[in-house]
């Protein structure tokens, strides 16, 4: 007993002061929001597609903007008709879909002119799928839930986690938010065992055919009002598992959680850093508002 008290004193108080104080220092090699040195693709050699070709998930689009500056469509992308409506992308030569991005750095290494780099900006969460498309820098950052939702969930948000084909990296770094280093319980956020006790669902993984029904049932078992959070490239877009449908189980492309349930918050990454996830959660709770 005495030993455990002494150990407690030596180990000390270790919870991050974030968001009131600074979060844990991220390593210099951390790959956060991508940056483009010359917006509009002016610095790119004519016809260069090195970054897009190197991307393992097809997260990069080049010159996808139509001449009239109106709605555009990502090449090779199935779902993002709304992409070009984001004004920030209209002039973009290169755009990133952070919902597909693995932050692996393959584009950065492939770029012959060092135009692409990754910042250490961990703020990556958005409330809309289109908001995840950026021409460099953070996406359209998540905004607080409606006042009505906030009045119910704002100070007590219980989440049920479902891994639907996740590789256990997203799961592990979601789990870590409950440890003393992050202690998200201090914001009233907690993982619970039963969907009946939950206010929301946190989904990881590309949603395998064998998990589709379980995900749907878990979602239905959560009482209204409720929210859904997709964590990681797989859950947002299918990530690595959305390509090559023929190779998938049942000959299906895995398209992420949005194909099964409505998503209120997208947290990009492979896996997202815990700071990215916590930042996203605190943004929809209105506890972080700065852009």
């Amino acid at each position, binding site marked *: 007993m005495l030993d455990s008290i002494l150990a407690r004193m030596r*180990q000390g108080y270790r919870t991050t002061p974030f968001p009131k104080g600074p979060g844990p220092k991220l390593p210099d090699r951390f790959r956060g929001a991508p940056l483009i040195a010359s917006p509009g693709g002016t610095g790119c050699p004519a016809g260069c597609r090195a970054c897009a070709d190197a991307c*393992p998930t097809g997260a990069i689009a080049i010159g996808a903007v139509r001449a009239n500056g109106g709605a555009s469509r990502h090449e090779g992308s199935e779902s993002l008709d709304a992409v070009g409506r984001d004004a920030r992308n209209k002039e973009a030569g290169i755009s990133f879909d952070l919902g597909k991005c693995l932050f692996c*750095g393959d584009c950065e290494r492939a770029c012959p002119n060092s135009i692409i780099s990754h910042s250490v900006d961990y703020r990556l969460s958005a409330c809309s799928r289109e908001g995840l498309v950026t021409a460099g820098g953070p996406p359209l950052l998540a905004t607080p839930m409606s006042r009505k939702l906030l009045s119910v969930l704002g100070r007590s948000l219980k989440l049920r986690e*479902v891994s639907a084909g996740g590789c256990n990296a997203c799961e592990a770094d979601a789990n870590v938010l409950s440890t003393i280093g992050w202690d998200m319980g201090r914001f009233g956020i907690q993982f619970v065992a039963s969907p009946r006790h939950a206010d929301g669902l946190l989904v990881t993984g590309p949603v*395998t055919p064998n998990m589709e029904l379980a995900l749907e049932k878990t979602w239905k078992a959560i009482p209204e009002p409720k929210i859904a959070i997709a964590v990681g490239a797989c859950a947002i877009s299918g990530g690595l598992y959305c390509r090559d449908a023929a190779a998938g189980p049942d000959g299906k492309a895995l398209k992420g959680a949005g194909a099964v349930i409505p998503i209120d918050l997208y947290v990009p990454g492979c896996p997202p850093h815990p700071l990215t996830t916590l930042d996203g959660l605190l943004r929809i709770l209105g506890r972080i508002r700065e852009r």
Partner: protein
Amino acid sequence: VTDQAFLFLANGSSCRLDAIPVHAMVDFIAAVTDSLAAGMRLSSWFAADPRGDGRLELFALLADDARNGLLVARSPVEGGSFPSISARFPQAQAFEREMAEEFGLVPEGHPWMKPLRYHPSWTGRDAWGRSPGAPIAPAVGDFYRVEGAEVHEVAVGPVHAGVIEPGHFRFQCHGEKVYHLEIALGFQHRGVERRLEGGPSRACLRIAETAAGDSTIAHGGAYCRVAEALSGGRSAVRADAIRGIALELERIANHVGDLGAIAGDTGYLPTSSFCGRIRGDVLNMTALLCGSRFGRGLLEPGGVAFDLDEARAAELSRRLGVAAREIGEAVDLMWESSSVMARLEDTGLLPPGTAAELGIVGVAARASGLARDVRYNQPYGIYRFSQIPVSTCDSCDVFARAFVRKLEIDRSMAFIEERLGNLPGGGLSSRLGAPVPSSFALALEEGWRGEVCHAAITGPDGRFARYKIVDPSFHNWPALAWALRGEEISDFPLCNKSFNLSYCGHDL
């Protein structure tokens, strides 16, 4: 017999496909069973269509730990079936069900022939005679049942209470006592192996990194070494050392997390809280190396993508020192708490004979007294020059599995410290040529759970015609079921944590 029947290959090497001995099925099965009876074990046992013409072959990959190498042989399959060896060698049972499910090949005489992952066959031929296109529901079908008055069944999952992956568990209980546990998996099946066909490519490397995401370095490393072997190239020497450091960091982080989780399941919160945090500190050391807490993006075929410069090595060494002290303190609290030890000792027994028979690998095998460790038995990369002692314990219980983890943390730390002071010079990565067509390559790694085995076959075009992954969990899930026999059902979480197996690594 063995020497003529098999080709002997070192871990991380390749050969022309036609150099692998071909036998008629009856001789092939005899050679495999003779070797297993002589103490070798199945690292992999799979079917393939190596030429893409529908002529299926079975491949056997046996680990010959005593001679530090692997034995490979193959046999053409005639008539859509082959004789099952599972009744005599239970370590083959999941492999044979896998072949049945993937290729529609029937293992004749398999004692428990049910689907493994619940997906349609790749070939259109169905081993269970189900009509094509009929829906296949996961975990639906026969389960082993205990019958009698007051016997009841407890069904759990796929969605569990914690933040963990899905699987379905059926307990046959009488009161609190568990007579049998059957585990049905497949919920996480993403089609990893088929997505690797047509490789190698950058996307393949990224997919391999997610085969089991908590073992990114082990699976990514095995993939890189398969790609290197197929192209006749080799990794840079400096990269070998950095890979070794990353693999040991992965081991330390997960072992620390597991020790905390084991303490947590006995209700002992000090160790649980401290270890939960320290695990994060170790993940951050991997992030110091490559920016990702899980080692994503560190490896590439030929070497590594990030250097470990002097300043970084010094910082890593400093952090390891702090972690070593804090882990020691946190774990000692648990060892010294008699109420914790009472829960760990004699719980979840897995006798050595059973472990050997089931083909168990990694921490679970070593905690049952078996000296199985790829780093020692099948040395590769940096482990050829720098050995880590094999950590074993012979009490075969949850305590042994916890204790082996602590030993391994200490030894991995010492290994990293030594490497940090002796990093070889030279480049980070060597350029690889194109993969040699019609070849076979294999690579084993000792991930933190145990043996990770990757094998690839290239077609005449030099692309992967078959890519076979065996995660240690594939071998070890039956060990959890066995260890729970005769235990109280309330000890399930504790037993489960002591193995901490991967669902996605099994389901692929």
